[in-house]
Each structure stands twice: as C-alpha cells, then as structure tokens.
C-alpha cells in the first residue's frame, strides 16, 4: 500500500515548515507536520510528512511558491 510509505520535507526552521505545509496543502496534497526524525537531523523542530508518491508534486508546489527547503527524505 503506497499510503504507508512516507517521505519528509526538511526545512530551515519551524516557520518554514509551516509555510511549506500551507503551500503543499494548498496544492491539494495530504501532508502533516511531524517531529523531525532524529536520524535525519539533530535539530529540535518539525518537518512536513507526505506520502512518498506525492514527493514530486510537493517539490513542484514548493518550487513554484519559492519556498526554500533543505531536503526530502524517505522514511
């Protein structure tokens, strides 16, 4: 089931994560703010979780809205 495979979009800060979440949700893509997995970053904030199949569409939405992000990781 593709719904069980997730990716996370890592941003500069929690503010950026909320902005990214709004842009991704605004593009009609399901997403959720979740705590940043420890193995991805030592940071103390949050990231945006999406279904892995939506990765390309989410990146496109962020790029179109000129929202910076640090990277995308499958989890």
């Amino acid at each position, binding site marked *: 089931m593709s719904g069980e495979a997730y990716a996370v979009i890592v941003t*500069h*800060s929690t503010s950026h994560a909320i902005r990214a979440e709004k842009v991704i949700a605004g593009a009609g893509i399901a997403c959720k*703010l979740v*705590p940043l997995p420890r193995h991805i970053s030592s940071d*103390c904030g*949050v990231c945006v979780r999406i279904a892995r199949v939506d990765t390309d569409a989410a990146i496109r939405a962020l790029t179109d809205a000129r929202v*910076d992000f640090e990277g995308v990781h499958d989890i």
Partner: protein
Amino acid sequence: MIYFDNAATSWPKPPVVVEAITGFLNNTGASPGRSGHRLAVEASRIVYDTREVLTQLFNGTDPLRLAFTQNVTEALNLALRGLLHPGEHIITSSMEHNAMMRPLRALEKQGVEVTVVPCSPEGLLDAAQVEAAVRPGTKMIAANHASNVVGTLLPITDIGRIARRYELLFLVDTAQTAGAYPIDMQDSHIDLLAFTGHKALYGPTGTGGLIFGERVNLAGFEPLKRGGTGSRSETEEQPGFLPDLCESGTLNAVGLAGLKASVEWLRGNGIAAIRQHESELAQRLIDGLRDIPGITVYGTHDAACQTATVSFNIAGLEPSEVGERLDSEYAIMCRVGLHCAPAAHKTIGTFPAGTVRFGLGTFNTHADIDAALAAVSALARQTQ
C-alpha cells in the same frame, strides 16, 4: 474617563485581543519554533499566522521575511544597525522620533553620514529636498510615515519613488500609521517596514517587527542579538536566513496571539472606516481648539493631511500643568512634553517646552471630543 493617549499606546483593546491572549495562556502556552509536540506546533502556527496577516496587511511578499521585535524602536535599530556601515550615507527627515534619531546619531559617531532634511513648521516634507540630498555613497532613505507629535503625514510614496530611482533602500517607520492608514509596501516602494503592535494595530505591548522587502540583501547583515532559534541547533553560528537571523530567543507568542486577533479585527472593521471615523474626530478637535482664545494648534489643521494626533498649547500654561489638570480635574489622559521627538519639536517651534498631545483612537467618540474641548476651554479661560 477619556483616554487620549492612543499615540503612545492604544487603549482599550478589542475584546477579541484579550480573548486571544487568555486563550493562548490557558490552552496553548508552549514555545513556538521549538519542539515537535502538539502544543509547540500550535504555538508555532499562531506565530506563523500572525506573520501572514501582517504581511498581507502591508502587502509584503513573504511571511518569512517578517522578523518580530519587541516594538518599532527595536525594528528601526535592527534595520539601521544591521545595514549601515561607516562611510555610507543616509537621508532622514527633521520630524523623526528618537527611535530613529538616537540610533542614527550613534551610527554617525561610528562614521555613518547622516543628512536631516528640514520639514516645514507644519511638519510637511518636500520630497524634492530629499532627492536633492542624494549623493554618491547614499545607501538609504529613512522616514516616519506620520509624526508622533503633530500627526502630519510624510509623502512616503513620493520618497519611495526617489529611493527606487537612485537604487537606495527605503526604510519607513510606521509607528503612528500601521493600522490607522493603508500602507502598501509595493505601491510605496518600501524596502524595510518597521511597525509596532501596540498603537493603531490595537495589539498588546511587546509586539512589533521589521518586514524585509525582496531588494534587501542580507549578506553581511548584522542582527542585534544572536542565540537560540530552534533551527540549525548543531551549529554555534547564527543562521543566515530570515526570520531566524533576527529572532533569537523565545518569541512573545502570547503577545503575537493578541496581535493576530487585533489585525484580524482591524481587517474585519476596515481600515478605511476606522480612518474616516478618526479623521472626523480629529477635524472636530482641531476646529474646536482653534475656536478657543489663547490656544495654538500645531500641524496642518487639516485632518486629511494627518493622523488623529493633535498637538496644542494654552497660552500662559506649561504643557505639564495642562496635562496634570486634565487628568486630575477632568479624567482626561493625554501626553505632554517632547514626546521623545526633540527634532520634531524644534521643527514646529515648540522646543524645549513641548506641547499637549491628544492622541485619538477608534474607540473615542464625538462626545469625548466635546467634553475635552469644554475642559480645555475652561482651563484657557481661567488662565486669561
């Protein structure tokens, strides 16, 4: 009781602001921008949404280019001290508050060159004189949108065009106008907009910010403080991106929750409608004061050219005595003296004694104006 000190801090606040503040303290409480638990995320969302409504209000480009500060003073310091270097030149007006003048005078001692363009005794600025002051090495023009002493509006769109023509940065101090007057960063070519939350935005004290336009290059920008941001925690270097570059330490999330509610309230009521009400009150006050023998009213005498802040003096009475008697005998609260703006008082000819300032707000009424006019008239009569 009549509160005429809205130019210092507006009061009362809309009930939704009080509800948002108590709601935050009762139900959210946590640190914004740190931790990933639900309350921290909720606090972060509230702070982010506050960035968003303010960016929309001023027609900025990106909510993440808004750095929160404690007030407009900190925002002006952030812009001036962050961007100006020895040898660079800045142009400002003679109607500025010390929130602008003191950081500039300190920078001047470090080698920044400052030109103060004189304004008329009514507080009016001729944009052509600003253009005439531009020279090689000029980096920035910085001006208030309206005087905190007489309320006179400066022609910020004209100045913005000049700044854009010469590729200068344009910093606007909107302390007296944010919330009271429509402000559009794009139309007025504003690169740096400094605002405070506790005056005409009707938010709580301890809130304000600086909005960075897209033309502001952050390379080499010096923040006022460095510290924890909740981001890039693995490094001991300050992040170079906004807003974290300028937002070290836990933000005033409870205050920002109140500010978000107040901005939404303002937008719901319509700034144009608020402006019309305040303008009517201001003109009624100006005309009434000018009818009283022994009163001098400063500024343009035209509410269309100013905010709802009116300065005057009673012949034969010190401003401090007028203020004390208005409070003790009539329960009218106002501000007297120099209003932290010696340059403006020198310009209008009231330095060093100052003036009596009535700062009107949206909750004032025609009845308040009439009661105040009767009180001032009685004081003036007793003095003749």
